């Protein structure tokens, strides 16, 4: 078992991950969901850092460091993408939640008609 001062970080990471997962499941608002994903991410990174910290040696293990750096960059990109997409969804559906069964509304919606493109999007 890891010693006490690392245990706390590891457990905190686990807790953050679980909390994030829970709110991802129960929150309807897209923004909250995206934030939930970020919380999960932070939990994962915390675990990595704790792992790096507890290795013996003069410095903390640099490998998990680099991995976390990679992870952070990826999660920044993910957040940006999610936000942009969420905004498109809101523009198209006029709501900030995901309807439960979207493909029910699909058949009329998939006919590639140009006018269909414009509907529900606020014009400049």
């Amino acid at each position: 078992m890891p010693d006490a001062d690392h245990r706390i970080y590891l457990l905190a990471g686990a807790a953050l991950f679980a909390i994030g997962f829970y709110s991802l499941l129960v929150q309807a608002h897209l923004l909250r969901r995206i934030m939930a994903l970020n919380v999960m991410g932070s939990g994962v990174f915390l675990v990595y850092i704790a792992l790096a910290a507890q290795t013996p040696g003069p410095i903390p293990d640099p490998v998990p460091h680099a991995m976390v750096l990679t992870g952070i960059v990826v999660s920044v990109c993910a957040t940006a993408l999610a936000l942009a997409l969420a905004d498109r969804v809101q523009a198209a559906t006029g709501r900030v939640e995901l309807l439960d069964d979207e493909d029910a509304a699909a058949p009329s919606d998939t006919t590639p008609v140009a006018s269909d493109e414009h509907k529900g999007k606020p014009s400049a």
Partner: protein
Amino acid sequence: MIAASAIALLILAPLAAAALAFALPKLGRWLALGTAVVAGAAIVQLTRAVLAGGVQTHRVGGWGAPLGIDLRADGLALLMLMVTACICTAISLYAQGYFRSGHDDEAPHRERYFWPLFLFLWTALNALFLSADIFNLYVTLELLGFAAVTLVALAGKRAALTAALRYLFVSLSASLFYLLGVGLVYGQCATVDLASLASKAQPGPTLWVALALMTGGLIAKAALFPLHFWLPPAHANAPAPVSALLSALVVKGSFYILLRLWFEAFPALMTPGVAQLFGGLGAAAILWGSVQALLQARLKLLIAYSTVAQLGYLFLLFPLAAEREGGFVAWSGGLIFLGAHACAKTAMFLAAGNILHAAGHDRIKDLDGITHSLPISAFAFGMAGLSLVGLPPSSGFAGKWLLLNSALAQGQWWWVAVIFIGSLLAAGYVVRVITHAFTRVAEPTTQNPIPPVMEWTALTLALLAVGLGFASHWVAELLRVGAPVIGPVLMGGAAS
């Protein structure tokens, strides 16, 4: 040296092409075709090297695991690379026509962004299949996920956008599960290298949880029942070439990682219970997906649910190949089936795309007129259907035959029953569509013209799906290189 540069090319070429396609939008289509040529050549070289010299490993930066990252090309990886190259080449051709025909003012914008995104997807797939490092696999997964989600959203319709966002949520959370699992593995074994994990991994709480996290994430990405809910809307509402890519390749990426994890990195944890559990989920997917496909009113949704079902067959590989001794029958069977499904499903989605393009709808009940005016697409759909149902001598048959053979030889008759019922259901939903090709119509209704390249790519892939059956012998021999299981390719009487 040749093998090494082939491996590097397979990753660098599409990556550079993607960047260039973004910097110089007008060149996108040509860059894609160029990539197809380069990738094809590289794969030929690599295949030669592997068949001659066995598994090819390249230590990036010359460091080597555990400090560095290894790229590895064995039979399995090569098969996946070949399938990817075939499908992506076909898509590059198909898309040439797809974005130029049809008359909505969105098309130019779509094409402008399709090419770089498509090339990123290709990069991600090649990198994924070549990587031998579970953290590096995480990066490739994210690359793959972002590209796939954005390509779905490219359709721009409401349904597509919603489906894309749901897909993104699933994909991101799944990746985080996987990433956390990787962290725990590193904490336990101090390495993320697939090859060296097998020796260091001792079953224990950490590894069980870690593997559970990774598997959960990958199952969600691979849309294995019951985590398939996101797939049908996403695959059905994406643009035709994208639907094809998603069904044929993207979901297979996660399945591939699952194989690597359970058969190569952590064989110690592959208990009979785990194997049967995978098989059970696969069986459920086969039955549920097929029944759903039978009930769909829209062609693309039918095909998407068929993907859910066909993915189930891949997971029968776990219980049937779990025994290292003689597991090779199911191993080669499942993977030949994978290739068959990739070609057949691509052909189907492309054919469906042509129909949707020509008619402006894909309601199955109103298809009568269409198939008369698009005989080639209809024929392609039929051919692909043959392989999907598993009629001999198609490659789908070869795969199912091997799975059946191993199930019978091991006395796991319940999988035989599942395959039997699944095939009949598949026949059901294929026939449901095909009958419309023969119904009598007064006069075919007028439709948008379809560029020939769109029809012929669909047909070519369909014929490939059937014809590859004759190559399955060769494929099986290729798969032997570096396979985690051994035994004859076929069991029974004289052979065993």
